[in-house]
């Protein structure tokens, strides 16, 4: 019998190593896997490269991981926010490396990694600072920039329901990067509100097929009951 569920968040992240590349789902705090991040902080892995849309909000989740100084580099599209003070302080102190990526290129590069593509040509960013020094090509009269896939050793994501084969469904806009990060990492760990019996998820409605998920942890009532 295949059962990808793991007893605890701590057990799920136990093999994340120093220097690992870790994708973390979420747009702001929606979809951020707080319990997995807390477990990662407790676990102690350091020198991490984190891939996320933002660079932490407030004092919890990714912001707490940054505050604990476990992150060497962050790859994101929108670090600066009203409540990104932990990142801001590290950045100004020169204690964190930032790779700034336009949001759609971030998504496309993550998706390219999951799909096994060697690179993509994207029109986004052409002629801007964020394409400086990058190879470009004209295709059918339009200019494109060569961008490489973003791979990761681990992805930490949050979904609503999962089953023991790793099939996932999400909740509202908390879906955001979950499905594509699940595809791009060697080991995807999902925290879910609950693990349902096989067959309980409508096969037509499965958003992330279980092949992309290696471990899942039931967190209990981590999200509000569906509104």
């Amino acid at each position: 019998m295949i059962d990808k569920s793991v007893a605890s968040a701590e057990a799920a992240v136990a093999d994340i190593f120093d220097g690992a590349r870790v994708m973390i789902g979420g747009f702001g705090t929606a979809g951020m896997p707080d319990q997995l991040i807390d477990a990662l902080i407790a676990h102690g892995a350091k020198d991490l490269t984190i891939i996320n849309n933002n660079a932490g909000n407030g004092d919890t989740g990714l912001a707490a991981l940054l505050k604990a100084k476990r992150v060497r580099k962050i790859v994101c599209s929108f670090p600066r926010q009203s409540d990104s003070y932990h990142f801001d302080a590290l950045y100004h102190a020169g204690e964190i490396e930032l790779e700034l990526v336009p949001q759609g290129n971030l998504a496309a590069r993550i998706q390219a990694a999951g799909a096994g593509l060697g690179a993509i040509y994207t029109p986004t960013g052409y002629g801007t600072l964020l394409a400086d020094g990058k190879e470009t090509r004209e295709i059918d009269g339009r200019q494109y920039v060569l961008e490489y896939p973003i791979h990761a050793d681990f992805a930490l994501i949050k979904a609503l329901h999962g089953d023991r084969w790793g099939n996932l469904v999400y909740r509202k806009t908390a879906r955001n990067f979950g499905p594509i990060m699940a595809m791009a990492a060697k080991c995807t760990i999902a925290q879910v509100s609950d693990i349902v019996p096989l067959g309980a998820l409508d096969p037509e409605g499965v958003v992330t097929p279980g092949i992309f998920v290696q471990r899942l942890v039931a967190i209990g009532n981590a999200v509000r009951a569906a509104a």
Partner: protein
Amino acid sequence: MNKLTRDQMAARVALDIPEGAYVNLGIGLPTKVANFLPADKEIFLQSENGLLGMGPAPAKGEEDPDLINAGKQPVTLLTGGCYFHHADSFAMMRGGHLDICVLGAFQVSQHGDLANWHTGAPDAIPAVGGAMDLAIGAKQVFVMMDLLTKGGDSKLVAECSYPLTGLRCVSRVYTDLAVFDLGANGASVIEMVDGLSIDELRTLTGLSLNDATVSA
């Protein structure tokens, strides 16, 4: 002359959004346009974090942390709306499926170059988000901004001095003083507020400006 208020600018933009259009309203001033879309027309608002059919802010106490817009504010989903992941969301832009996006700007060039993500200040933490994807993705890119900075400099310029977001991507600019169409022939004035002349606009902007206003 009577400068348009921000609400009047938003109402003016809303007039150019037809029923059935798929529209992304950028963070900040463009968000106001939603308040002026006619209730009797169905217009699809997209939010790049992953929803189509975005509705207004929820009633107090009804906020759901899993249902937010690109500005991370709580919103609602209209009946018939749907959710999707980030790669699909940006395919909607980059793939040319969005009809209109409305963005704010630091500067727009007379040929449609857009600068709205970074002032270039050395100590500023850069952040780009979806600005570059929106700028080059939507079929039509509208900019909403005050024509002049607080210091009186025109934000519609011959060439942008701030770092660019996208090249030759803005088709129309709505300001508090005039509405401009942009293209290979430069900027054309299509509307002005009462009491303003095209020559005064040319002086304010330092641009030659084509007169495309239609007399009432």
